[in-house]
């Protein structure tokens, strides 16, 4: 296929050339654009390690047909910048990162959650992050990290 299409990732346009039509967004991000943060594990939307935002919605990149995501803003962990965000720092501080494989997806999901719900209950956190599977932490420290950011942001706005 000689088609060229353009994806808008983290505020930049990326040309995708000679791609197979069925390529999912996760594959294109990693293998064609060199953006390695989103991870591939299940490729069926079960694990959440490929979580990214497309048009402001949290989705599994492995279930997005890349060629159908033209003209939509796409945000990955790389788009958060070179300096750790408060969410990334809280994950480090609380020990919410162990092997780290699930972390990029969880960071995107946590930013998405706190953008929409600045003061989530523990149940809301558990439910909103239920699509991000972590096999190391048992989730306790991840929930602690999210709560820590929520408290710090609230204190900062007072």
């Amino acid at each position: 296929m000689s088609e060229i299409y353009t994806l808008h990732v983290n505020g930049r346009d990326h040309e995708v050339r000679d791609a197979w039509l069925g390529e999912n967004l996760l594959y294109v991000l990693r293998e064609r654009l060199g953006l390695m943060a989103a991870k591939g594990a299940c490729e069926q939307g079960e694990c959440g390690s490929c979580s990214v935002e497309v048009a402001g919605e949290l989705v599994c990149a492995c279930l997005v047909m890349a060629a159908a995501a033209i003209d939509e803003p796409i945000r990955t962990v790389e788009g958060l910048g070179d300096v750790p965000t408060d969410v990334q720092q809280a994950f480090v501080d609380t020990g919410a990162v162990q092997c780290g494989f699930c972390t990029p997806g969880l960071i995107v999901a946590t930013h998405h959650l706190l953008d929409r719900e600045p003061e989530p209950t523990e149940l809301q956190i558990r439910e909103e992050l239920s699509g991000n599977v972590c096999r190391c932490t048992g989730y306790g420290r991840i929930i602690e990290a999210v709560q820590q950011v929520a408290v710090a942001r609230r204190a900062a706005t007072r």
Partner: protein
Amino acid sequence: MPVVVPTSLADAVAAAGAAPDALLLAGGTDLMVEINERHRDLPWNDAAVISLNRVPELCSWTFDPDDRRLRLGAGVRWAEIERDPLRAMVPALAEAARTVGSPQIRNAGTVGGNLATCSPAGDGLPVLAALGAEVHLVSVDGRRSMPIGDFMVGVKRTALQPGELIESVTVPVLDGWQGYSKVGVRNAMVIATASACVVTDPPNRSVRIALGSVGPTILRCPEAEAHVTAAADWDSAAIDDATVTEAGRLAAATSRPIDDHRSSADYRRHAIGVMVQRLIRRAFPGGAS
């Protein structure tokens, strides 16, 4: 471009008419899994895929206050159905929506995709069946509508013809109680082992019961429905224990489960009995009549 991304219903219908064999892509949560696992070949011709998630007419809903019917565009996502204002209009569908996959899946997956995939385990389908939903199809040849029971033909088979799109599904907004129940190996991110929906319509003295994952498509339970309708005390919303037990027995007898990698037929039949009893009790909380 082999992926067509129409931005109006007219363009989507024209694209489907021009390429009747094109794959229709909505949220991608079913289709992309098949493509990722190479269970689905992609043709290489023009318009091999028509992406439907940017068609405003499909992604919106309307409520007609005169006939109290809700029209859900096929592209309305579970994440929207799970929240108000839709939650208040179709509470059982919102409960089912909340059990679909994960937040990521609900942000992508659509009610029309659930219908088009027509899995026996589709979470929205028992609710749509219990509500007596009408499915509306559109193609270059015009529109046609049918009850959901006629739309669902078999396991992953529907009445949708090549070149046709699901435009919307309409359901009544009822005053009675309605609820959805689902059994799986865990709470989040699980495909139903068995599921059930009960809807009551007190002004019309009607109870509807529908079962998921226990037959080739969703099953309604006419015997259990008739039994509850006749035995319930509608004025006080009360029901006796014997009626509840019999409703569960009749629903379990209606189910046609199979043994597979997710569960045994026996367990599924048992679970249907338990879930229908619980739902009927919640629907008629008035105590023993």
